[in-house]
């Protein structure tokens, strides 16, 4: 968290202020940099949100300085959410520097340190260093160690933070090893683990929804909630990511991180304050009480999407012909604590499902007694649903029963909707913009802590183990359908059903 400030002007300006920063981007010519990070930096510049003393230092093994600037212009032009203003981009490029070097070469890091010191001199004051590792996770430990050896990590002056993104290991043991590697060089408080879902407005709105609305507070427990469903569905296939995806599958790629974060935010106890560590303490606490009691897994076969034929997973380029990777995972989770005992959380994530949709659905318990004399009416009563959509349409909707007009009593479910893009006219910032800004403000609320990552692995590890022993068969499902029969059975056997996609 930001320290208390003696700034007389801060109270009237929303949010903590960004502090002088140098953004050091490892993997500056990679895919993530081009698609997300460079456009995010540009948009922050365009909205005047970068600190006065700001510099960016790109680090990669290829390219010359002038071609890097060209690369940056191209990346921003192609992927920025707002139109590119040449003057702003030119000004930003003035603040961009570039080092070519091999990240495995120990000689690179003193050069970075010298560049940072020179840069601070030119800016006229010290800047916090944000080391963003947009590189494969196997380099996280070595880079962290090299930064430490160059005096840029733990205890460095000016202070530094390390920003890394998933995957954080492929199981609990490797996650612990990775955490041990990076914490050997940086303090936990200096490490910002990105889960870009947490940068999304709706996810942040979940906290506001729960803790700023009195009507939900008394209902948010086992007594009134029958079950919770969380779906992270994609309509696309594995695309060009087969090399990575085939090693991870849906459970490691999406469930362990994004979905478990959504579960934690939905189920956590109210924090005393909205400070980074209190929120993360509560998330960690609830994750500790979760265990998976049933699972299903599937792999898409050939099918139809958008009316056209699409290949099955095994026919995708770079996928081994005998791959048993899950492209869909469904879990029934129990949250064993006072608030949730007996209220299951059903979660599923997959590729080649009927449409792209990430949402949290709270299914309330049915009415205790149905006083309608007509049995068909009594039969037709459906429980209330509260749906929080994360993407593509950010918003919330509550399903309630209403009487259809007419002499008969006939019920019809109706929805009360709130759609983010419509209610508020301002543009929603990209998740990465928010997260980079928070890093420059020194606010860690929206980043995951090591213990959260490890607790989430503790939940999914036994599931993966049971899959590897063959206890849970891998079932084929047709592309463009909601998943295999076992994923349906997982919820239907409890007398419930997935919300239709």
């Amino acid at each position: 968290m930001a320290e208390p400030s003696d700034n007389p002007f801060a109270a009237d300006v929303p949010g903590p202020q960004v502090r002088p920063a140098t953004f050091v981007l490892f993997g500056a010519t990679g895919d993530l940099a081009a698609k997300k990070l460079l456009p995010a930096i540009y948009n922050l510049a365009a909205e005047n949100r970068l600190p006065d003393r700001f510099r960016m230092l790109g680090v990669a093994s290829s390219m010359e300085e002038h071609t890097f600037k060209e690369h940056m212009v191209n990346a921003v032009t192609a992927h920025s959410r707002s139109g590119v203003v040449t003057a702003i981009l030119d000004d930003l490029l003035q603040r961009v520097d570039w080092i070519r070097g091999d990240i495995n070469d120990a000689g690179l890091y003193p050069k970075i340190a010298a560049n940072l010191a020179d840069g601070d001199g030119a800016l006229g004051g010290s800047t916090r260093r944000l080391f963003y590792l947009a590189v494969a996770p196997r380099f996280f430990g070595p880079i962290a160690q090299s930064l430490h050896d160059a005096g840029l990590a733990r205890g460095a002056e000016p202070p530094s933070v390390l920003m890394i993104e998933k995957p954080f290991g492929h199981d609990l043991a490797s996650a612990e090893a990775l955490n041990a590697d990076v914490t050997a060089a940086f303090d936990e408080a200096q490490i910002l683990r990105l889960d870009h879902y947490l940068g999304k407005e709706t996810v942040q709105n979940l906290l506001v929804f729960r803790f700023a609305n009195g009507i939900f507070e008394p209902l948010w427990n086992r007594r009134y909630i029958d079950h919770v469903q969380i779906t992270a569905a994609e309509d696309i296939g594995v695309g060009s990511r087969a090399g990575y995806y085939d090693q991870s599958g849906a459970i490691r790629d999406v469930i362990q991180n994004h979905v478990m974060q959504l579960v934690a935010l939905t189920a956590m106890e109210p924090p005393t304050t909205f400070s980074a560590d209190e929120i993360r303490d509560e998330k960690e606490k609830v994750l500790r009480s979760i265990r998976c009691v049933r699972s299903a897994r599937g792999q898409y076969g050939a099918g139809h999407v958008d009316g056209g034929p699409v290949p099955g997973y095994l026919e995708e380029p770079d996928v081994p012909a005998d791959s048993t990777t899950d492209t869909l995972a469904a879990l029934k989770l129990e949250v064993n604590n006072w608030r949730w005992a007996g209220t299951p959380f059903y979660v599923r994530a997959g590729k080649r499902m009927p449409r792209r949709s990430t949402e949290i659905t709270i299914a309330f318990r049915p009415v205790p007694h149905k006083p309608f004399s007509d049995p068909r009416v009594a039969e037709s009563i459906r429980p209330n649903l509260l749906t929080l959509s994360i993407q593509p349409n950010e918003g919330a909707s509550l399903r309630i029963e209403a009487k259809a007009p007419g002499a008969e009593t006939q019920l019809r479910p109706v929805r009360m909707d709130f759609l983010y893009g419509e209610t508020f006219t301002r543009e929603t910032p990209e998740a990465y913009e928010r997260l980079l800004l928070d890093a420059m403000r020194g606010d860690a609320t929206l980043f995951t802590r090591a213990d959260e990552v490890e607790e989430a692995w503790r939940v999914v590890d036994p599931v993966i183990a049971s899959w590897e022993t063959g206890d849970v068969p891998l079932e084929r499902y047709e592309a463009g359908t909601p998943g295999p029969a076992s994923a349906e059975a997982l919820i239907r056997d409890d007398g419930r059903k997935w919300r239709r996609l």
Partner: protein
Amino acid sequence: MSADASPELREGLHWSARDTSTDVVADNLRRLLLEADRQHGALLSLRTLNLLVSPNAHVPRTVRAGGRRTVHPARMIRLVRHADDRLDAEVGVRLLDVGGTQMHLLMEDVTLRGNADRLAHADSLIAPLLARGIPTVAWLPGYEHDDVDRALAEVAHVTVFDSDLDPDPVRALMYAHETALEHPCRDLAWLRNAHWRARIAAAFEDETAQGALAFMPSGEVVGQAHLPSTVLVAAWIAARAEINVTLRPGAGTEPIESITIAGLRIDPGHMPPALGAPLMEALDTVYSPLPGYEDALQSMDRVAIVA
């Protein structure tokens, strides 16, 4: 909804009448909404406010209003002055496509025409037509704020006006002062300089800068010294830093050319491109209090305008 998904304007449903009453207008608005629902089935009416528009409009003096997004999902009730002693009304209900979502947005426009006597009781014209349970915002796009504007301010939860429109800054700031003390309000002149306030706050994150305030307790703003938004920034600096601020006319036409506080010159950075639409900003944040604005209005006496 993406910003430049230019919404496709559908034909829309219309009703109008001469010499009518608000009850009849309300009935017909309801009828058109039902008709729209019948024709278009699963549409979503996502109206989020009642937007009352005052008949006192003036051509903006310094800044053009609007921006890329000029549509806010609102029930808009517009008052127009005419000479005859009767109430005329027009109601329009039309659909806009919401970019990429396969959903539609219902726009409701109500125009009421009356003479000065009727409009002076604007509250009674408007009350039957308000959608309930959502905020009511009065937009006063002029500067000679008369009884109609005052009546609208009474009905609304929040009053939105723009002090910069008024060629007489003293009158504008007096009105702002009066209104801000009585009603929640949004002055676009205040919102217009949000980025300057952010730059100033950012500059004073620095401890050296904070320390300098004690040694050099003064500030200077150079720009259009008779533009309310510029005066407001100067007054806000005075209020927050508890210093006296000098306001000097600049050489150019920029509302603010430079700001120096405690010897520290504030870097303006870039103007954020979204600045075209302070009205939209105002509508999005109708319920947040603006303590800085009120404090600035109370600290005008610490600003010395030097010719």
